[in-house]
């Protein structure tokens, strides 16, 4: 199994309910997973747990055979080889586009770094924007820089937290297509969070629907969102309306 | 890795401390009252006097004797507190204050040791030395009256006590009771006239205030010039400074004022001293003694008198021309240590009568 999460458990300090409750889940290499759920259902928290930005209360998690978290170990986020695109991008405002991208590159020669930066900029179609600062970019461009920055170190796993929420609809559709193309081209395993089933449908190989920090349903988009749901072992059948109602 | 930051900070502080400890090392752990052989010739002085003339005298002393004078200047009480807390380890050799009350306090706290020599006895009258030889006087200053020559005739003036009479209503100027000079003035009255009388006096002065106390001694003189009051209680040496000010207007103010030494027929004019005592456990007590002898010597006394308008304690030294022009005067004849003894009582009286 490429990525394996077992019984993940997490509660925020002041809350009474488990924010993430007994979460178990596996992902194959190269898969694009969409996590779908109401706001407040624990999607971001789940991503932050996978990333190592929060400390789980229990459970285990391994990635590509490496233990990220279990009873004894907790690997710091910077050591996990996981990339993340934040909801508001979190581009470093004091660095140019290129500097933002170079920041995450591992030790290699200056020339190689520049080359890699060009590759990812080409991927997101932003050649020529290297010297700009984040505040000189449109929302969609910022989003693509954030993606390029996350992809540049070639992470084993890419996490995206509602990457389209700040974009207008036209841009959303375009970027969504771009993203799938980019992810597939780079053969990146990715988990992205959304509350929009169109996004999920367009992008994901599989969809995980969560509610109150628990998995409600897992399935392929065509199965969960499609016209003729087919039975998947261990899955509950749900209707399109139920998903629309998210 | 984060720890390296903290390590860096700690290291930095250590370096700081190292380059900060500039003071030279003392001789061996010789804790006798008088050190036998100070390795480096120096004397460490805690002083509450901050006059340029003092610094020049220290420099002169250094040149003459090769003994380096190290100085820390602050309020006397703070210095006393520091010595107290440093205990036997203190580096201070000599405590110098501008008020005898503070010397008394240091003595009471057991911070001083006896200091005497033939030279000191010769240079300083007995009256200006502690009965137990714990401190000696260096300079004197008198608390005098200055008055508006146009509105007050010298014949109307007699004593501090007379200022409480009704004719002086709304005419008397004096600074706040926070000034140690007022405290020692009242302390002397407690000694001479008793607590009751002293309180009556303070109350009487408050009743005759021309305005609520504000500003320093010089400001009282200026207030006369401005017509706020007619007579002020102030220190002789501040008046001397005004007469020699760089600001011509101040000189003008001072020249229009008369000087009066009160209580000449009775108990004498109040006098306070600057003085010094050697710290118990001093590691450079010999040097401290040398410095005291130097400061009460004729050369230094002449400097105090001419540059700072203070009265010398050494009888062989004449006061400056200005001070001489004010004439000889009769001083209060009480043990100076009583000024210290009665200091707290004086404060309480000031508070009780509402002398701000």
């Amino acid at each position, binding site marked *: 199994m490429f990525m394996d999460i077992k019984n993940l458990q997490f509660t925020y300090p002041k809350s009474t309910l488990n924010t993430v409750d007994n979460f178990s889940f596996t992902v194959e290499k190269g898969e694009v997973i969409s996590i779908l759920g109401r706001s407040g259902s624990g999607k971001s928290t789940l991503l932050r747990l996978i990333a190592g930005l929060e400390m789980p209360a229990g459970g285990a998690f391994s990635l590509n055979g490496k233990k990220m978290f279990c009873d004894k170990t907790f690997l710091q986020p910077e050591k996990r080889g996981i990339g993340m695109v934040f909801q508001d991008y979190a581009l470093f405002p004091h660095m140019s586009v290129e500097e933002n991208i170079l920041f995450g590159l591992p030790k290699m020669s200056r020339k190689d770094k520049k080359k890699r930066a060009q590759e990812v900029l080409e991927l997101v179609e932003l050649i020529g924007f290297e010297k700009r600062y984040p505040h000189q970019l449109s929302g969609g461009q910022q989003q693509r820089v954030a993606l390029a920055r996350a992809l540049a170190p070639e992470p084993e796993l890419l996490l995206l937290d509602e990457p389209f929420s700040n974009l207008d609809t036209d841009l959303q559709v375009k970027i969504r297509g771009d993203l799938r193309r980019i992810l597939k081209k780079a053969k990146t395993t990715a988990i992205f969070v959304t509350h929009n089933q169109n996004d999920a449908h367009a992008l994901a190989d599989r969809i995980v629907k969560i509610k109150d920090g628990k998995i409600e349903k897992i399935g392929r988009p065509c199965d969960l969102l499609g016209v003729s749901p087919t039975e998947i072992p261990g899955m509950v059948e749900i209707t399109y309306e139920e998903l629309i109602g998210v | 890795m984060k720890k390296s930051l903290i390590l860096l900070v700690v290291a930095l502080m250590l370096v700081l401390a190292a380059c900060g400890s500039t003071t030279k090392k003392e001789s061996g752990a010789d804790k006798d009252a008088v050190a036998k052989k100070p390795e480096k010739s120096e004397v460490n002085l805690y002083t509450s006097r901050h006059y340029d003339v003092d610094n020049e005298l220290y420099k002169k002393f250094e040149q003459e004797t090769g003994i380096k004078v190290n100085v820390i200047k602050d309020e006397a*009480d703070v210095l006393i507190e520091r010595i107290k*807390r440093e205990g036997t380890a203190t580096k201070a050799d000599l405590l110098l204050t501008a008020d005898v009350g503070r010397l008394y306090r240091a003595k009471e706290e057991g911070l001083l040791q006896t200091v005497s020599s033939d030279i000191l006895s010769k240079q300083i009258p007995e009256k200006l030395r502690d009965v137990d030889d714990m401190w000696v006087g260096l300079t004197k200053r008198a608390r005098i009256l200055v008055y508006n020559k146009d509105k007050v005739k010298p014949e109307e003036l007699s004593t501090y006590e007379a200022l409480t009479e009704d004719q002086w209503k709304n005419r008397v100027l004096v600074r706040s009771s926070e000034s140690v000079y007022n405290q020692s003035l009242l302390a002397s009255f407690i000694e001479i006239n008793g607590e009751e009388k002293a309180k009556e006096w303070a109350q009487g002065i408050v009743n005759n205030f021309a305005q609520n106390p504000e500003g320093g001694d010089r400001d009282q003189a200026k207030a006369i010039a401005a017509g706020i009051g007619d007579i002020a209680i102030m220190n002789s040496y501040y008046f001397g400074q005004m007469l020699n000010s760089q600001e011509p207007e101040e000189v003008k103010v001072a020249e229009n004022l008369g000087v009066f030494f009160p209580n000449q027929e009775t108990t004498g004019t109040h006098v306070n001293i600057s003085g010094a005592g050697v710290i118990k456990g001093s590691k450079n007590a010999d040097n401290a003694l040398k410095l005291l002898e130097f400061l009460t010597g004729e050369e230094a006394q002449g400097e105090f008198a001419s540059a700072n308008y203070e009265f010398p304690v050494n009888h062989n030294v004449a006061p400056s021309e200005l001070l001489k022009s004010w004439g000889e005067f009769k001083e209060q004849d009480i043990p100076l240590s009583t000024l210290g003894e009665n200091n707290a009582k004086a404060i309480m009286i000031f508070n009780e009568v509402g002398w701000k």
Partner: protein
Amino acid sequence: MNKHLANVNGWTIGAVLIIILLFLPNVSIVTGVFSPASENWTHIKEFMLLNYIKSSLTLVFFTALFTIAIGLSLAWLIAQYDFPLRNFMKWALILPLSIPPFIGAYTYHGIINYTGVIQKTLRNHFDVTPNPAYFDIMNVPGAIFIYTLFLYPYVYMITRIFLSHQSASLIESARTLGKGPLEIFFRVVIPISRVSIIGGASLVVLEVLNDYGVVKYFGIQTFSTAIFQTWFGLGDLDAAIKLAASLMGIVIFILVIERLLRGGKQFSYSTTKVRPLPLVRLKGRKAVFATLYTLVIFSVAFLIPILQLIDWVILTFGKVPMHDVLFYTKNSVIVAGLGAFLIIVFSLVVGNFSRVVNHKFAKILPKLTVLGYSIPGVVVAVAVITTFIALDRFLAPVYQYFGMDSELVLSVSLFMLISAYVIRFFAIGYNSIESGFDKIGTDFRDASRMLGANSLRTFFKIDVPMMKGAIISGFILVFVDILKEIPLTLILRPFNYDTLATKAFQYASDEKIMEASQASLLIVGVSTIAIFVFHKLLREEPK
């Protein structure tokens, strides 16, 4: 849960150590509250406390009111409008901070007293002898005037930085809703800048509470007077410390109120979208008014006293020993620079700790370090001496091991003085740094770690550059404050270590204000350079 600790160890250890160091001396003061009352206590209570507290509160209240009025109005003008001289005023209006209030008090009294330039000129050239009562500033209103002039920059500086960086969208949306400037000021500007106003005003309040120089000279009896009368006059240090401890109580009370006023209403902004507020150009009468207003404040709070000081320097030229001036200046710059540097480093460690450890305790604890700033410096000094002498005793075996023959090492070194500065002024630096951390939030930090940067690299590459403004302004505030500092410097310096401030004090305490002008002017000069450099550095910061 020790895994939780694993996440924060380095920072936590550092921060906790620093906080303990900052608290240690204060603890010895706080315990003073519980010391048994001395025989003087009834006297103190009956004759000193009540009235003194009353005048302290009067001073605090009106000074806070006026500094807010002036500081906020200036901040708003400069942040939102363009008018002649604006670019100069933007930084020049901070300059009054460089004048120690007691020097300001002496100077203003020097200007307007009987022999001062005003009355002198009226008398000698116009033959007018005005009623001297009009020229009396040595009273409570006068003290409020002095404090307001020389302390308003705290409010101005903190609020202006906030307004020009944080408020663009709010103010613009108010404009588009057709609100007039005054309505925007009262309904938008004041509410959104509440946190920075209170932050600045609380520094002002603390300065007023711990000040002794101005009130002593003016003959006003305040809480700090009571502390000194008790100590110096009655010779009762224990009772004085008890008083100081009660003052701390008042300050804690004020802090709690401040917390309540802030409430949960911390305005937070998505920092990627922070952009400067575009300036509205003022024309005609409005422009004249704006320029005039800033010019009047600048003149009264800076230009006039400086001109007077310069006049005195010329008057006493050659009469004041000059040869050591460079030495004092160098000493001043060294201690102020070192002190400010350490405070900023410590503030960054503690601030980062407080941000990473998301716990109430970690938020409130650093706030309490402000206690060192609330009580008169001399009382802090006694506490510091006590602590360092104890430290020296504790380290005695170490000294012996290294063959040092002195029992006092730390407590006679510059180390003690610098530590005392850190204890006293930490709150000022921390205030700046904390608001810097607040502003950048944790997103960038998370992003950096997701890009493989560890905590330390993130700190230096992301946090520190993003907080450049906060770091520089914190540094400058502390630097200028240390330059002016007197009571700690006087008693805690090593032998023969004079600074500009101790020099100025030496003369001023002996009523020789003219002789004090040279050192005072140098304090102002060094501070002015520092403030100017700060202004330049901030301007070049990429937006």
